[in-house]
């Protein structure tokens, strides 16, 4: 059995205790003087015009999904770029296939009107 991680077991309750103690103490000891200006979401920022709890267009979701896809694409591109020379034509071929599939997705989204806002 590997015991080298055992200290972590002792750190765990300690790590739990610290925030609990801090939260309890501030609640008990801290002076409270609430006012309307203090309880807005962004205390020193712009006053929110309406409540945040309302419906918003589902198109934001599409944008988020597209962003996620092409963001992950970049994650895969980086290691290839770092090892570009070693990977040579083989790496180029594999990445081309990968990119071609993603481009196909983009073409599909475009043609299906996924990129249009209205």
């Amino acid at each position, binding site marked *: 059995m590997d015991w080298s991680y055992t200290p972590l077991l002792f750190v765990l309750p300690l790590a739990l205790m610290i925030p609990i103690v801090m939260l309890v103490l501030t609640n008990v000891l801290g002076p409270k003087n609430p006012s309307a200006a203090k309880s807005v979401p962004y205390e020193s920022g712009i006053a929110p015009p309406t409540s945040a709890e309302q419906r918003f267009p589902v198109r934001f979701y599409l944008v988020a999904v597209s962003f996620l896809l092409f963001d992950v694409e970049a994650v895969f591109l980086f290691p290839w770029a770092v*090892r570009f020379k*070693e990977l*040579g034509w083989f*790496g180029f071929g594999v990445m081309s296939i990968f990119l071609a*599939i993603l481009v*196909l*997705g983009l073409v599909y989204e*475009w043609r299906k009107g996924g990129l249009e806002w209205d």
Partner: protein
Amino acid sequence: MLAIPEIGWSDLTPLLPFLILCVGGLVLVLIDALIRGRAGFPWAPVTALLPAAALVAYAARWGDAVGETVFGTMFIEDSFGSTVGVLICIATLLAVFLSGSYLDKVGRTRGEYYALIAFSASGLVLFASTTELLSLFLGLELLSIPVYVLSGYLRKNPLSLEAGMKYFLLGAFSSAVFLFGGALIYVTTGTTDLVEGLRLGAGSPLAQLGFLILLSGLLFKAATVPFHMWTPDVYQGAPTAVTAFMATAVKAAAFGALARVVAAGSPLWDNIPLTQVLWWVAVLTMTVGNLAALTQTNVKRMLAYSSIAHAGYLLIGLVVFSQTGDHDALSGMLYYLLAYTVMNIGAFGVVIYWANHEREHLEIPQYAGLGWRTPALGLAMSVFMISLAGIPPTAGFFGKYYIFRSAIEHGFHSLIIIAVLNSALSVYYYLRVMVALYMRKPVATLELGRSTVVGAVVAVCAVATFWIGFAPDAFSFVPGVPSIVEWVQGAAIAAR
């Protein structure tokens, strides 16, 4: 310096069925993008070319599939994988033809449906042809995600939406369970190859635990008790053609992968009570499935519970295999999967055939007198019900016979007594459909739909149900199903 794998065309040939389905799916996406949803494109026939081409690819290499691995150990080409692959392609082919007519009837013909079916089929093929944890997981996701979407495909229908949502949430959870099991094996042994990993980690409790967790992730996909809760709701809510696909192709792949994982776990067989675990899962699965099916009035829900019960019968093959390593049990399982595929697709086909443009007729009492109104379809439905109940001389009987026989030969008497009692119980709810078809007066004039393509699929399935039943020797079966055993032994020898 990095090791660049040398990849030639010869490495890709074993992957051909997978590549055909996968690239075919991409082409379908492209076509859908280019025609911009214009009506009139023959989606179903074009999509059907993919599993048909994959079948040709399997046939062309039938004798050559001798347990070689491709890309390291990422993909195995052996006769077991090819057999499951053929089953998957047959089920996909039939389901695609059902889909064409079904989507026309519900007025939701869209290209993406067919692309998703193709992607899912490629995942199924991969899932059944590997013991590498990474490709196993890749296959699992590739087959699952399209099926989640397809379950919720009728997005104006609350039942379908519920099915999609439920399947997605539970399926994602079971994928996580699967990954966790795989991670435990990896962490103990430092390899993602399941055969190698379980050989190295045979004595480690962590790897044994990982193996059992991995197994439960797979048992979820195979819809076995206690991981069956999603099945009735998803099968009922999903579009009927998708249900047919899920109940046959996905089930075949899930059992293929299960058999591989159980085989790869052979070094553990002495260390954990695997046979007992599978024994209880099998007994619970068939009993719960059958008891719940007794009271169902919705035909899709009834078939869902029946598919749970059938998963229980199929598991008997694995119980025997996990005790004895006898490959006959596995060929019985594969034979039963083939029988199950044709009779189940046929039954769903009849349901789709009768659906008209406004609605499907899913309540069994609605079928009153339909056997006299549409004699051919009524007869076909009766054949499928008789076969599902396991009455000779149909395929369902011989499938059960092969599985039960190998279990009896190895002394699993109590298991078989329970299974036969269960079979007898199931006759009640299958025959209830026939009673409605022939012995009840029609309650109201039902507006029936029709479809030539679905009629043809139903006819093919009905003939196949008898043909497989009458000529079981023609299928007994599958050159070299022993290969999974040889392959496990081979891997063990190679690893020494």
